[in-house]
């Protein structure tokens, strides 16, 4: 019953000159929650609409199961879709909205009633069935849109930024609700979002897009730990990874960031950086308070230029090597602007990218995560 979705060298162009999507190839496994994520205008919605059949495919092949579906109309692809603005029919009641598709498919009246009440129960819409969409709140409309996608019992569900019209609190709630529904029904979900938090928390796997090109595909945590390039490194994670270009003396293995920060590359990493210009990346949570607990760390003093205390964590900014860096410390820290704070960075937590190609040379080593995991266990 469940089928995989395969995209083979998919391209899309509107003017035959410039590709908005170029050569996307990916396989979405049956029953997977797959997230397409990227900044606005990166082509993620276009890919989703091509899978749905709402947009022509300029080049390449899309397969559902083993069947090529390039020229099938949307209704023959056996999928359902939730739109960003929900696309509810304003003149129909909630119930009529939910069973609109079943009505079209000429499913018997009793079956329609049954499926509608099932979906309504699952989403807690039971008492709203006779209302019109305009009499519902944003969150309730969202649920109606979900119910409409569910009643079709299609094995594949497409969602185009379904949560972006909700407030932050409701969005967090709906994230887990959508995830639970997907697990419960065991459907294949292809989910488009620009929000990296949604991508990180909901996806089994995700694909990061930028300017119509794949940046990286993988499990969220793997992408977080091993970002393929500086774009991914700054797009995934909040606050974003600090990136700064540096000079690299590959004879001595010394890295120099505008004379503010110098450290040596470990001998085992040296062959990889030979003859390359580097960009150094460090995640805000890897900039630690200098406590002398760790040895072999890069230590320095920095001047705080901005502080945000969020209750569970403290984010502060400082200048280093001509750039503004952000650091994130757990807990509440009474810092004020212009304070000088001692920080340290473990060499293992540093990320190195090739400055020219953007490729990842060295990801943060695993060793530090082990420390965190052990702390969690205690």
């Amino acid at each position, binding site marked *: 019953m469940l089928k995989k979705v395969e995209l083979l060298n998919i391209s899309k162009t509107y003017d035959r000159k410039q590709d908005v999507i170029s050569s996307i190839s990916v396989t979405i496994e049956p029953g997977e929650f797959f997230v397409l994520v990227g900044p606005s205008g990166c082509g993620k919605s276009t890919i989703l609409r091509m899978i749905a059949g709402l947009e022509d495919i300029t080049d390449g092949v899309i397969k559902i199961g083993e069947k090529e579906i390039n020229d099938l109309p949307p209704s023959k692809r056996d999928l359902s879709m939730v739109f960003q603005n929900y696309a509810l029919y*304003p*003149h129909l009641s909630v119930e009529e909205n939910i069973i*609109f598709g079943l009505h*079209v498919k000429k499913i018997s009246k009793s079956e329609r009633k049954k499926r509608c009440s099932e979906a309504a129960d699952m989403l807690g819409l039971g008492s709203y069935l006779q209302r019109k969409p305009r009499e519902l709140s944003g969150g309730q409309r969202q649920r109606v849109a979900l119910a409409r996608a569910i009643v079709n019992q299609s094995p594949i569900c497409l969602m185009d930024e379904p949560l972006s019209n909700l407030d932050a609190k409701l969005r967090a709630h709906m994230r887990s609700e959508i995830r639970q529904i997907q697990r419960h029904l065991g459907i294949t979900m292809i989910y488009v979002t620009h929000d990296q938090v949604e991508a990180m928390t909901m996806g089994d796997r995700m694909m990061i897009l930028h300017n119509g090109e794949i940046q990286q595909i993988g499990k969220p945590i793997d992408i977080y730990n091993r970002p393929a390039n500086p774009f991914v490194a700054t797009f995934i994670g909040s606050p974003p990874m600090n990136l700064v270009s540096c000079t690299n003396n590959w004879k001595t293995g010394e890295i120099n960031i505008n004379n503010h920060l110098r450290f040596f590359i470990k001998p085992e990493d040296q062959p990889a950086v030979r003859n390359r210009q580097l960009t150094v990346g460090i995640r805000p949570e890897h900039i630690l308070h200098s406590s002398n607990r760790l040895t072999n760390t890069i230590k320095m003093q920095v001047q705080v230029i901005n502080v945000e205390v969020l209750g569970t964590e403290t984010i502060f900014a400082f200048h280093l090597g001509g750039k503004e860096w952000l650091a994130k410390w757990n807990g509440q820290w009474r810092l004020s602007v212009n304070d000088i704070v001692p920080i340290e960075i473990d060499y293992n937590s540093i990320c190195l990218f090739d400055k020219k190609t953007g490729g990842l040379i060295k990801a943060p080593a695993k060793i530090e995560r082990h420390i965190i995991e052990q702390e969690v266990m205690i």
Partner: protein
Amino acid sequence: MKLALHDTPNLSLNPKTSLWKQTQKARVAFLYLLPSILLFSVFIFYPMFKTIYLSFFLTDQQGEAALFVGLDNYQDLLTSQSFHKSIKATLLFVLYTVPAGIIIALFLALMANEKLRGIGFFRVIYSSTMGISVAASSVVWLFLFHPSTGMFNRVLNLFGIAEIQWLLDPDWALFSVSVSTIWLNLGFSFLIILGGLQNIDEHLYESARIDGASYWYQLRRITIPMLSPTLFFIITISLINSFQTFGQIDILTKGGPSESTNLIVYSIYKDAFINYQFGTASAQAVVLFICVLLLTILQFKLGEKKVHYQ
């Protein structure tokens, strides 16, 4: 203490200034309304009340009220054969022009709403009758309807069908005038309906396509209900317009032949400015006003249930 002293005189402002201040918003609002109040008074309210006033009088050649006759003018109308005929012609004319005009406009708008290359050209063409004056287009239609040289009769000749006296045959005249009126009003209706169609969220159709709804199903379940406020508006406007048709009658038939196209507005015009019977003309105008008013109220009462406002 100082503050209190300073405050007291302010609180007991003299009443005049206070009233002036209180009404500030109302005065500003009135200022904004003033232009339309002026225009409406001169061109709508004054003529309307003058018409009602005159409908109770017999008038002299200058149109001045001469003799108060009470409801006699109205009584004469109710018994007048000519007025009955006029009412009948008007109702038939409305029946011919309004539904046909709106259905054709809807059809054209549905076609022009498709996303095709060069569709802008057709949108311009279809709405172009908005830019043509009634007089100019009526003259063109006069040529088309011409018994011997007109295009319609020539086409009929080609197929060996007998010529039709489009504007001279009492059985055909009202139909001919209706055809030209439908054509004339098409541009406006088309434009309004097209605007309504373009306001419908594209995602609704995409969602329906994923569900597999056919074109006709989408038209019936989505387009028409979503278009209902627009349709309601254009039906109301067309209905009122149709009741008030004058220009094309004056140029094409002058109310003839044998009063078959003597629509009520033309009949009012004839009574007032040809027969100088301002009293009966005013009475007819009042009757027309009441008819249109009642019809519009009725339409709102019936239509409201079928119209889906967002």
